[in-house]
C-alpha cells in the first residue's frame, strides 16, 4: 500500500471513466443488428476505446456509458451489422 501525506506526491489511482461518462461525447451511436452479427468479435478486438464487451453468449455489447461514437466498430464489421445513428435527430 502506497501511503504519502495528502498533497505531497502528485499521484492518482485507477478509475473507470477518468474523463467522466465519455458517452456524452457521442454525436452518433453505433447500433448492433444482432440478426446480422456473426460473433466474429472484430468490433471487440478493434474498438479503440475498449468499450465493447464480449458477453457469455459470445455476442458483443456496447457500453454506451463510455462509447465515444468514433465509428471504428462499424468500419471494421465485415457484415455491416453495426450502423451509426445520429444521437440528435
Amino acid at each position, binding site marked *: 500500500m502506497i501511503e504519502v501525506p495528502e498533497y505531497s506526491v502528485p499521484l492518482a489511482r485507477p478509475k473507470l471513466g477518468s*474523463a467522466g461518462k465519455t458517452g456524452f461525447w457521442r454525436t452518433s451511436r453505433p447500433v448492433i443488428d444482432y440478426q446480422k452479427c456473426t460473433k466474429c468479435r472484430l468490433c471487440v478486438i478493434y474498438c479503440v476505446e475498449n468499450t465493447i464487451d464480449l458477453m457469455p453468449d459470445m455476442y458483443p455489447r456496447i457500453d454506451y456509458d463510455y462509447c465515444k461514437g468514433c465509428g471504428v466498430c462499424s468500419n471494421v464489421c465485415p457484415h455491416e451489422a453495426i450502423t451509426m445513428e445520429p444521437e440528435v435527430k
Partner: protein
Amino acid sequence: MTEALRLDNARFLRGNAACPGCPIPKELDTLLSVMGKRTVLVVPASCTSVILGDTRGTPSTVPVIHSAMAASAAIASGVERALRARGEKDFNVVVWAGDGATGDIGFATLSGAAERNENILYVCYDNEAFMNTGIQRSSLTPYGAWTTTTPEGKREFKKPLPLVMMQHRIPYVATASIGYIFDYEQKLRKAKGIKGFRYIHLLSPCPPGWRYDSSLTVEVAKLAVDTGIWPLFEVENGEFRLTSVSKTHLDKSRRKPVEAYLKLQGRFKNLTQEQVQEIQRMVDEMWEEIKALVKK
C-alpha cells in the same frame, strides 16, 4: 475500488480522455494485457500524458511514472535497476513514448539506454507529429505531409528510426501497426520474453492530425502496411524477419499502390501526382533495401 479494478489482469480502463477514434487506449490495453500487472509504465510528455487522466483518477491499472519529455528511457533505467536491487523478480519496465519524444527531444536518452542495453521495453507509438501540442512536424512526419509547421507539406523524409535502433544491436527491434493487432500482440509477447533493451515502433494513426474520419483508424493503419509504406518486421539478435502480411510484400505486385493510403488522409490532399509518384518510388526503393536485409 470499482469492479473493473478487481480484474485479474492489467487493463486500460474505458472512459478516458483520448479523442474519439484515437487508437492509444487500445494499444495500451493490448500492451498491459500482455505485460501483466507487474509492469511499470514510464510516459513522457505526449497525448498519453493527458489520456492518463489527472490526480483524481487514471485509466491505467499498473503503476505509471510521468516523465519530462526527454527523460523517459533514463527514468525507466533507474526504475528497472532499483526494482532489481530490491529483489523483485518477473517485472516489466516499459516506456510508452510518442514519436517526438523518441526520435527528436528524447533521442539521446533512448540511444543511451539502448547502448547500455538496459533491461526495458521501449514502445514508440508513432502518430507522425507532435499531436498533443496541435500537429507540429517531427522528424518522424513523413514526406509530403501537412502539419501546422509544414503548411506546404514536409520536404524532408521520415527518420528511419526502427533501422537506427537495429544498428544499436539491441536484442529485439520490431515494427507494428494497430491495423494488425495480433502481429503487435505477438511482438509484445516475444519482447516480454527477452532480456535487455527491446524496441517496438508502433504506427498509431491520429484522426485529427492526419485529417481522416475517426471511423477509419484501423483501415488507415492497415493500409499503411498493405501499401508497403509501413513494413511489419522484427529483428531478433540481428536476424531480420518480415512478419504478417508484409512477408508477401517483397513481390511488388502484392503491395497496394501508395495512393490508396494517401488519399484517405487530408494531410496528403495537396500532394501533386509527381509527389505521389515520388513517394511510390521511395517505398519501392525501401523494399529493395529490405530485400538485402532479409537475405542477411
